[in-house]
């Protein structure tokens, strides 16, 4: 007989409020320690986004502690007080309650509000990180199997091994890869980006604490993945300049400088062409395409009097395409930065291409 069940009048049981008080006390204690810990992740915050990330982490930690305590402590408490007494028949039933709209309303609305607050804080911190000042120093980090190289402006050759950053200098790090996907992680600065071949990802950081910190690869990249680590040295501006000078800084080359076209050597360029260009470009005429057009007659082709970007075929304009890369109707070519080419390399390549066209 399907009886209509009258909504039972319920009270919450003897220990409910003391247990609720326990949950509040335990959660408050956990919140206090989370909130006041200097290093919530366990690592020193050594660079600019780190304090913001740590703040978010603390906020998440406090919210998680409350929810975890509510769920766990009530579950255990209900499990104990509402267990079936030993000698009760197994068919003994519990309170036949189906729902409680007010309670359900609140446990939907309160987490929603929490999520909105958390969302706002996350977006705010995210925006701060995205808008972090960087451009005082721009470094390029290139991953390869299994190590890192760093290119600094005005250094003709990339630096292998250890990265150096000057203290308190807003720095932009462009990361990319020469082969497979790698990761670039400085745990102490809470920054990470994947190093993806054919793509440049950007990180911004201002190192604030001098010291030596780890750089770790976080994407599987092959047999040597576990050993793909290096360090970053954060040092004063003076120490940095001293180190920089030892790396053979030149005024002629580098990111902002001119490309040394006159110094280009065709034989060096030829070897470089084999390594860097020949996967996509033949040395035949324009129409002998692999991915991009053949480059054998680039300076002297009556059928194509202009370069692919519409410029005149001068050495300067060819160098510009190699330097900037190309993106247009016939395809995409990565920039020199992504191809791992220095300005000296570009000069050598242009000299080689010019030697081809003369033949």
């Amino acid at each position, binding site marked *: *007989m399907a009886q209509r069940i009258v909504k039972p009048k319920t009270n919450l049981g003897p220990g409910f409020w003391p247990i609720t008080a326990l949950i509040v006390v335990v959660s408050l204690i956990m919140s206090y320690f989370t909130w006041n810990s200097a290093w919530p992740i366990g690592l020193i915050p050594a660079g600019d986004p780190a304090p913001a990330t740590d703040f978010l982490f603390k906020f998440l930690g406090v919210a998680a502690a409350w929810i975890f305590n509510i769920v766990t402590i009530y579950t255990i408490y209900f499990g104990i007080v509402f267990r079936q*007494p030993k000698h009760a028949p197994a068919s003994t039933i519990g309170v036949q309650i189906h729902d409680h709209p007010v309670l359900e309303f609140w446990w939907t609305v309160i987490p929603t509000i929490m999520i909105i607050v958390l969302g706002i804080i*996350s*977006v705010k911190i995210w925006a701060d990180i995205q808008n972090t000042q960087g451009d005082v120093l721009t470094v390029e980090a290139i991953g390869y199997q299994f190590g890192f190289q760093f290119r600094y402006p005005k250094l003709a050759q990339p630096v292998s091994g250890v990265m150096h950053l000057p203290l308190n200098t807003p720095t932009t790090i462009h990361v990319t890869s020469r082969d497979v996907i790698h990761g670039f*992680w400085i745990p102490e600065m809470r920054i990470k980006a994947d190093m993806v071949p054919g793509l440049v990802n950007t990180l911004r950081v201002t190192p604030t604490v001098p010291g030596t910190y780890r750089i770790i690869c976080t994407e*599987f990249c092959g047999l040597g993945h576990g050993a793909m680590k290096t360090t970053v040295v954060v040092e004063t501006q003076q120490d940095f300049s001293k180190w920089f000078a030892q790396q053979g800084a030149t005024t002629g080359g580098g990111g902002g400088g001119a490309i040394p076209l006159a110094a280009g050597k065709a034989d060096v360029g030829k070897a470089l062409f084999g390594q860097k260009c020949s996967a996509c470009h033949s040395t035949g005429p324009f129409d002998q395409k692999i991915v991009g057009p053949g480059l054998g007659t680039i300076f002297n082709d009556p059928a194509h009097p202009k370069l692919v970007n519409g410029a005149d075929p001068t050495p300067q304009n060819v160098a510009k395409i190699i330097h900037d890369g190309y993106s247009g109707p016939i395809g995409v070519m990565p920039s020199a930065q992504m191809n791992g080419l220095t300005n000296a390399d570009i000069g050598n390549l242009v000299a080689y291409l010019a030697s081809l066209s003369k033949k």
Partner: protein
Amino acid sequence: MATIAPGVKTGPYHAVLDHIHPEPTSFIRKYIFSIDHKVIGIQYMITGGLFFLIAGMLAEVIRYTLLQPQGQMGISAATYNGVYSMHGSAMVWLVIIPLVTGAFGNFVMPLQIGARDVAFPWLNLLAFWMFPVAGVILFSSFLIGAPDAGWTEYPPISVQGPPGTTLWCIAIFLIGVSSTLTGINFIVTIYKMRAPGMTLTRMPLFVWAQFATAGLSFIATTALAAALLALFCERVFNVPFYDPSRGGSPVLWQHMFWFYSHPAVYIMILPAFGIVSEVLPTFSRKPIFGYKMIAFSTVAIALLGFSVWAHHMFTSGMVPWLQLPFMIITMLIAIPTGVKIFSWVATLWGGSIRWTTPMLFATGFLITFTLGGLTGFFLAAVPADYHEHGTYFVVAHFHYVLYGGSVMGLFAGFYYWWPKMTGRMYNEAMGQWHFWITFVAFNCTFMPMHWLGLMGMPRRVPIYDPAAWYVFWNQFASISSFVLAASMLLFAYNFWSSFRSGKIAGPNPWGARTLEWMISSPAPYYNFKKIPAVLATPYDFGNPLPYLGLEAAEGATEATPTHSSHPVPTY
């Protein structure tokens, strides 16, 4: 008994078995190429169980390697990479997905909706047999060089990977087709074959979970199939889908892979939610709290699950502003998930709880899954994810949701439905020991990975920082994982001895109220001699059973309910 309720359709379903195909008698048709959903469900369970054994041993090889920081255990990096990749791939595609859908979905769902089989039994047979074939193909890649780039197989490294990676593509493609077919089959079954009177809001919550899951498998798997086909073509025919130097994009794979693999997370967890939603009311002896909200949140999670895939890719390289919608939608999933968790806790309140093994696992699930969900929040918040991505923190997180969630739910389901599958009871004391050892060893294995990751240990490494702190926590995790593996012996022995000499269970040992408990154990070939009419939700323990026209199995009717003698006032 009340008269048939208004709106209950009588029709062909209501007919007595007038047209019976005789039960096959040959061994092959009965147990190997059977079209009976119950046999297929058990076939999935046995096959998935074997793969679980293999994939679990691979996990122990991983933990064994990490006992020492610099590879002193003698496992080479190449072996290690193959082992962890196969562990992940097998656990996801050969263990959890087939077990939660193929095994439990097949065995339980048609019984719960009062059907005699799934809608397309031959399709079901086909879908099942793709599964062991895919498994054999996947594991045979060890013979020619196992894939080494993890279960995610990101190109370009996977394009250059060992020859076994091609077999990996084939095996996962096959299992994807199988999963899609099962999805279609379940959608039609649940939509068209419910017993008369079983409206959508009278369906057991496990059926709701299977319904949402089937939709996910059906829609999302195609994206994976396309990605796999492209990877296969790139490896075998040198078609540059993913090679950046020839105009491809490595990030394309990541989008397509995660467009499937994030919904796949819900394919793996929603059925476990369904199992827990059956076990908790049965052993609390009270209705599930907030039935409609749990059913609705299941669908909401499935729908939202389609628009969050790029939260796996916050560091991969995409337009920065695009990270925000993915972060916000990911956080929104916490709302329906929270509703479920709070409803389960409220189901315990005021219950008359019997602490049986399935109930222990369901409650353990509640605690460990909550923790896994909360760390999910740490990963959803983009700035925090910049720190955590690709570290052991992520490993800890997904083992809490997949082992602490899906596998705990699976254990609850195994113990709960074991009597229905075999007609015998397992050993309760041994089951409870299994739970406690699993619960403690699981937490000791994966909890330290949270702080290992935050402090700087990346994923997928055979060697790590030799500082004493890292070595200690890795050894702690490894030794705990050995205990976790050993607890499986208890589980296996329990079911083996129960199968041989367990107590006869009877049709309804738990006093449960869903339809599968209304027929004898093990369930007869045609399930229901007469399809019953359904008058109400199955969870009203205070009311008479809401079924009409059931040919009562012996002892199937519940004893008259006794009200709780508990100090807490009820009515």
